[in-house]
């Protein structure tokens, strides 16, 4: 089973390993070159690569397309499953073996990418934008969540492929569902725990800001997107000084920096659960259906 999986999927594995190695070298060179740079130059150096790193959330989609979707769809579309499933290995073992082995490889590859990005980030300590918690792309590209994203994309592709049994429709559906889940996760992430509240505090290093409000002297809180009643007539440029004169203080809702790992495990757990829910029924259905 291991030999068969390697034999059939070595192209994906080698290409992925090659790309990861190339990215690792790039991150290493870029990170080491940042050593000892002064503030402004360090910031500029970070931004120069961050432009591309900010695309990290889409990378798992490639795994879904090239690892997941063809896994079942290619066999079913070409009819080669008739040969594969009439060998001495049972159909259920063939399915679980392939999905398990490849899922493991994909997860490990995702975790390796996350570890490389995390290591790269440590070179940019004083840079505000190098924020693994507050930054959407970096949160999903570091820690354990990145491994879960890779696994989820793979499971999604495989499940869709087993369901629609044709490659191109499977590709299209994988893209659509993945993008929907990705956007939903961006929205849901800040609600994994009840946010903390702070009044008139300084900067919150490494925290994930989830909302803001203004607090009047009498203790009434006005939401950040609403207009403070005393300043309803103030112009765009005088508004901020007006609410300050009226005695308002700013309120911030945030998730503190030390919740990073808790949130990482929450996201990873949700994605793994979703992966199991996606793949389970498809394995059951494909295993039961007549060849």
């Amino acid at each position, binding site marked *: 089973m291991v030999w068969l999986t390697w034999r059939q999927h070595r*192209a994906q594995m080698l*290409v992925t390993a090659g790309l990861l190695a190339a990215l690792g070298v790039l991150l290493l060179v870029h990170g080491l070159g940042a050593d000892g740079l002064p503030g402004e130059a360090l910031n500029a150096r970070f931004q120069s690569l961050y432009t*591309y790193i900010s695309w990290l959330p889409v990378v798992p989609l*490639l795994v879904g397309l*090239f690892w997941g979707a*063809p896994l079942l769809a*290619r066999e079913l579309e070409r009819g080669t499953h008739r040969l594969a499933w009439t060998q001495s290995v049972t159909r259920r073992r063939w399915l679980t073996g392939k999905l398990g082995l490849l899922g493991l490889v994909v997860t490990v590859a995702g975790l390796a990418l996350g570890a490389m990005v995390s290591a790269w980030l440590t070179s940019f300590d004083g840079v505000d934008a190098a924020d693994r918690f507050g930054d959407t792309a970096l949160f999903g590209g570091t820690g354990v969540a990145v491994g879960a994203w890779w696994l989820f994309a793979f499971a999604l592709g495989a499940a869709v492929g087993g369901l629609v049994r044709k*490659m*191109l429709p499977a*590709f299209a559906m994988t893209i659509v569902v993945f993008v929907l889940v990705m956007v939903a996760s961006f929205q849901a992430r800040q609600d994994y725990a009840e946010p903390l509240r702070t009044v008139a505090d300084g900067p919150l290093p490494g925290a994930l800001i989830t909302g803001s409000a203004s607090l009047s002297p009498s203790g009434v809180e006005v939401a950040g997107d609403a207009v403070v009643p005393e300043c309803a007539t103030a112009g765009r440029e005088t508004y901020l000084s007006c609410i300050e004169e009226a005695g308002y203080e700013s309120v911030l809702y945030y998730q503190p920096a030390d919740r990073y790992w808790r949130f990482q495990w929450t996201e990873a757990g949700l994605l793994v659960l979703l992966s199991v829910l996606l793949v389970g029924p498809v394995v059951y259905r494909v295993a039961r259906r007549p060849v």
Partner: protein
Amino acid sequence: MVTGIAPAGWWLFAFAVGVAAGAVTRRLLVAMAVTLAVFFLVYTGVSLTSARLHYAAPVRVEENAPEVRGEPWAINTPGGAQAQLPAGALLVTSGWARADGTAVPRDVVWACAPTAYEYLQCMRDKGLHWFADYHPADRYWRFQYTEAGALALVTVLLSAFVVRRAR
């Protein structure tokens, strides 16, 4: 990139790359991977090399006494330089030059920095003048046609290659 007719050029180009990749590799998955890689490389290559800024020779504006609102040395930042240009202009480069037109290195540009409000006077005393190269706003359509045309040309070449191969 996402307005005007350039997007049509990009869509056409991506389609042609896909067809050519399919014709060469003859395998669905490999063709898709190659198409993604080629498109990504060309697309980022065009942005990375700022190829768009070189579709035409830029217009140069030279000021002996630029008027700057706020901090005078803000003129050395892209935002400050943009403020000197007509609305909608696309800034290519800006800086300081000597009377004979040679550019001034960075450390000389900042040498006058400590005297904030005399900064511009200080630069003038050194015989330097400020300049900026830019594309005026009315070149938008010309640049759109340049980009779309270049992509259409590549599309034609790729298609010709595929047709020739199929014979």
